[in-house]
């Protein structure tokens, strides 16, 4: 009975696919699993037990240490102050770069002017400049502005670097909105900013979410700008994490390192979980005409 064979073959194929996908999932989850379990073990247990074993006695001491007592060089305040540095850096930087990107995209897509394409191309070009290239000139500019070593300086750097991407996102989103909408609003008497606030911004939730996720991930995870343009007291969490892991005296506290790494990664994870479904929707929104 060929029909039956065909059916069995399909089921086998389906199961084979699921098993393969399951293996891949396990493979990718392995590091996270090791990180979480290790962070919950005592140093004693790490030394004696297996890397992949579940913790015998669950302890939250490494997390407490990583948060409040771990040493970065000579200071032993944990990640806490640097976590707040990163929050104070990421929140304004994300907000400002997203807003500027929205306005830029709105102008480039809907208020065509002579040279609009050239300006947009130049902004796109900005997305492809490697971080390392701008380090020295940026340090000079920050110095001249009196922002060297401050969190405001880092916000400034990330806003500048983010505008290219945020403009690209918003421009591609707004370019699909019919130009007649702006025309209708102009006839209705609305001006440049009124049209932006009352008509375009309320339409933009999906692309705002995409931009916020993108920018937040970039800025929160950035290490190079953080390490280059900060000083003691203004370092972001990535730099502090590096310092904790690399400045061990005596025994290497793997459990504290793991807990610290998870703490540093949690905010971006959280943003994905909360806004993830909008992310996919927003990324594809540009390609399908609403």
């Amino acid at each position, binding site marked *: 009975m060929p029909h039956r064979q065909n059916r069995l073959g399909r089921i086998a194929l389906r199961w084979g696919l699921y098993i393969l996908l399951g293996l891949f999932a396990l493979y990718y989850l392995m590091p996270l699993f090791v990180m979480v379990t290790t962070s919950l073990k005592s140093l004693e247990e790490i030394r004696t037990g297996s890397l992949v074993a579940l913790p015998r006695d669950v302890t939250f001491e490494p997390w407490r240490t990583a948060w409040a007592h771990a040493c970065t060089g000579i200071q032993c305040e944990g990640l806490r102050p640097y976590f707040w540095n990163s929050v104070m850096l990421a929140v304004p930087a994300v907000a400002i770069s997203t807003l500027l990107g929205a306005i830029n995209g709105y102008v480039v897509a809907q208020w065509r002017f002579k040279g609009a394409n050239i300006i947009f191309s130049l902004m796109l070009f900005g997305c492809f400049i490697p971080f390392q290239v701008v380090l020295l000139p940026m340090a000079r500019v920050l110095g001249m502005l009196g922002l060297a070593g401050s969190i405001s300086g880092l916000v400034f750097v990330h806003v500048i670097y983010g505008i290219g991407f945020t403009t690209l996102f918003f421009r591609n989103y707004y370019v699909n909105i019919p130009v*007649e909408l702006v025309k*209708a609003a*102009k*006839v*209705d008497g609305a001006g440049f900013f009124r049209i932006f606030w009352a008509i375009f911004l309320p339409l933009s939730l999906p692309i705002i979410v995409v931009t916020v996720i993108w920018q937040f991930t970039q800025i929160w995870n950035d290490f190079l700008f953080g390490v280059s343009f900060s000083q003691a007291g203004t370092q972001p969490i990535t730099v502090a994490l590096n310092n904790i892991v690399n400045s061990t005296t005596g025994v290497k506290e793997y459990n504290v390192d793991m807990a610290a790494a998870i703490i540093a990664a949690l905010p971006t994870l959280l943003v994905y979980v909360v806004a993830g479904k909008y992310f996919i929707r927003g990324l594809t929104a540009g390609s399908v005409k609403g």
Partner: protein
Amino acid sequence: MAPILEVKNLVKNFGATEVLKDINIAIEPGEFLVLVGPSGCGKSTLLNCIAGLEPITGGSVEIGGQDMTHVSPKDRNIAMVFQSYALYPTMTVAKNITFGMKVRGLDQATQERKLAEVAAQLQIEELLNRRPGQLSGGQRQRVAMGRALVRDPKLFLFDEPLSNLDAKLRVEMRSEIKKLHHNLDATMVYVTHDQIEAMTLASKIVVLKGGIVQQIGSPAEIYNRPANLFVADFMGSPAMNLVPARAVANGKGVRIEIEREGGDTLILTDKEHSGLPENVVLGLRPEDIAEKGFRAGTNVQDATCLVDMVEPAGADTYVVSKLGGTMVTARLHAETGAKTGQMIDLSFDLSKVSYFVPETGERLN
């Protein structure tokens, strides 16, 4: 009375391309002007220029007796309805309609009174709390009209407002716009590529082609006395028959000779027109060719023609015959006995004829 809209010597270029060339149009209060032409003829651009949404390269635009050439759209005292309706997607119908008043800072009470008036007029009261996405095409169209009506402007501008609707709804909305024009006694400029829309709505038609005005006139003038071959061919459905012919002076009138296949020349005698050059294009609408005995008049000529095709269309039957190298359509009554391949006696009403110069397309009579 002073014209509501006066466009003088308007020129519009996009870079090096000339889109509109020396346009001159004037509209009296209460007129319904339709700009019609094939796609790419510049009619929408002209409307945008009138609205102030496109800067003009030369000439001037006056609205209500004031020079508006460099005035921004919001101060031109106009309202506009767009092809895609351009409703604000995140606002309710009510907010869409009142947005303009809100921007202009009208007080809440006035806004609500005007909204209620317009909603009643267009019968959209039950839609006021919905969003554009929840409306059908026809309903969106009404809301877009409401947004224009509520402004109470000197001049209404319509940019192909019915093109996105299906055929049945289009006819309905067409008569509704006509009624609205009548009831409001408003002045309107309406852009369309549909010549039937132009004929049914307009009190004055402007035919555009390649950014040049071909003819301005009432629908009857445009239909009966097209200024050139383009207008003759563009306006009317089925199109006017345009047949190459030879004209030979014949006493008071003219003898028209039309070549046929097989060497047998069709000869008509036009008693009314004279002074034609030798080669002309004869233009005659399908309804001006009838079956023999169904058309009377002083200048009706009969001739026997071969039927190449019969197309019954319900109310009428179209009979196609090859004359002068082109297919000539005659509009006969529904019960005609015409059969493909047979001969039929047709009456040509030459009192309705148009003559054109073959090379330039200009009208001769």
